[in-house]
């Protein structure tokens, strides 16, 4: 269907951003609503349908933005929706329900996705592999301008872009980075990062987003303030103020580990590699934990026959929906554990 298959996009495969030793991906999201419509909590089914029609005809059918694919989520297969959740193209909430709603994806790399009728009428998201928030913002800003030339946004001078939840009002911008912090976790300093981030009004989330635990020492950090600051200020304080400090902190911790506890790190990395090569049953969380260790091993030069883009791909295809796409058939949980282990054995051993 509509371009959703098990092949992962270039955004994941060939990270264009910086600091890929620590940063898996970075993204910028803009929340926008159409003027003249209620927000979705007060929208009728007909309103929702009208919104999807307007957006589809003006953005996609008009060819306003190149290479866009429209996916009607209320008519799509649930497995396809889960693939998109795992790839972070749509939210978990957006995958549920039977109301008229959609997602627009940019082909072929899926770096742009626009959720239509999620919490806001439009949630425009630009993703990059590695750290490249300025670049992502430049592109999303230009796309936002294009959209705004054909769709009038709900906006007022005082509060800016009006959003369903007042926590997004103003610039409506969320910048975030997915960070891999295994060394800080290992030396027990991860809570310091959490506390520091919170004190700077940043949200820290786990691998699966809101309310989730950090699996495989992967953390998603994002800004929370959207009012009273310009987009550039929000971007700058995040990507040149805070992120470099966390990235350097993790790198420092890795250096310390290599100097003082090299054997322990090597043991963990190679145990993980061994499990991936020989296990017969693996659940998704365990796969992520093992791949997290392997990723560290690749960065530290302990594993030479795997690279970061392969690890990123394995992290994705170890997820339930991707796994079923790769295998090409629906599997129950027990079948998935066996299939996942077989897939990992094959992909990791073949390197």
């Amino acid at each position, binding site marked *: 269907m509509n371009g959703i298959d098990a092949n992962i996009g270039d955004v994941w495969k060939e990270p264009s951003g910086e600091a890929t030793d620590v940063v898996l991906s970075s993204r910028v999201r803009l929340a926008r609503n159409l003027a003249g419509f209620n927000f979705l909590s007060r929208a009728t089914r007909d309103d929702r349908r009208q919104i999807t029609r307007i957006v589809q005809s003006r953005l996609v059918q008009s060819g306003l933005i190149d290479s866009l694919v429209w996916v009607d989520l209320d008519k799509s297969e649930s497995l396809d929706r889960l693939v998109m959740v795992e790839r972070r193209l749509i939210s978990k909430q957006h995958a549920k329900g039977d109301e008229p709603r959609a997602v627009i994806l940019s082909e072929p790399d899926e770096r742009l996705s626009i959720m239509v009728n999620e919490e806001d009428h439009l949630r425009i998201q630009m993703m990059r592999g590695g750290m490249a928030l300025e670049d992502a913002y430049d592109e999303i800003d230009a796309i936002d301008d294009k959209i705004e030339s054909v769709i009038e946004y709900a906006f007022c001078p005082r509060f800016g872009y009006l959003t369903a939840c007042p926590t997004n009002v103003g610039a409506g911008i969320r910048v975030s980075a997915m960070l891999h912090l295994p060394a800080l976790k290992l030396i027990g300093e991860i809570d310091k990062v959490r506390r520091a981030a919170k004190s700077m*009004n940043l949200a820290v989330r786990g691998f699966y987003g809101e309310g*989730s635990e950090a699996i495989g020492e992967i953390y998603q950090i994002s800004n*929370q303030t*959207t009012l009273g600051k310009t987009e550039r200020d929000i971007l700058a304080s995040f990507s040149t103020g805070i992120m470099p400090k966390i990235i350097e902190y993790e790198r420092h911790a890795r250096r310390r580990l290599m100097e003082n506890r090299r054997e322990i790190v090597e043991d963990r990395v190679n145990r993980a590699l061994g499990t991936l090569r020989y296990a017969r049953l693996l659940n998704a969380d365990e796969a992520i934990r093992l791949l997290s260790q392997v990723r560290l091993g690749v960065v530290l030069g302990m594993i030479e026959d795997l690279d970061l883009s392969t690890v990123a791909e394995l992290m994705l295809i170890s997820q339930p929906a991707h796994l079923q796409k790769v295998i090409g058939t629906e599997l129950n949980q027990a079948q998935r554990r066996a299939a996942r282990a077989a897939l990992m054995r094959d992909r990791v051993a073949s390197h």
Partner: protein
Amino acid sequence: MKCDRCDNEATVHEVTIHKGQKVEKHLCEQCAQEDGIAIQSAQSIPPSLMQQFTVGIGQQAQKANRSPSCTNCGMSYTEFRQHGLLGCPDCYHTFEKQLLPLLERAQEGGTDHIGKTPNRSVGALKRQRQLTVLRKQLADALASEHYERAAELRDELRDAGVDLSSATADADEDAAT
């Protein structure tokens, strides 16, 4: 936050430790009941304590009742507080007074947009925004005693045709708060 099972707002949050792993559940009341999670009834709370709460709720409810619902979408302030989502763009105007303190808390004190402005609202909004930014910068410059920068900003504001007496008054007022 929405319920893990359905689209309702999650109001019951349960954290348990299972085999050393933290398991979080966020459910709406109905799904929580189906899941057998006991929701503590008001009866188990000592009456004296309960009274304190209900008095507070009563006052709040009265306050909320006094504030009118949104004339466009019919959303009441109480409803907004229950779900955290406004009903339409007009709600920002209807509930401006109540929203301001919430915004201040959630937005590090920010109550005015100084970011991007849609191009389509032509020059007017943009100019207004630029002036707001200049005013804020002037206030910051004065507060941090960067008088040279403040003078430059005052010139910029004057060039933009702003009545300086009021701009400075604004800035001074801002700087003082």
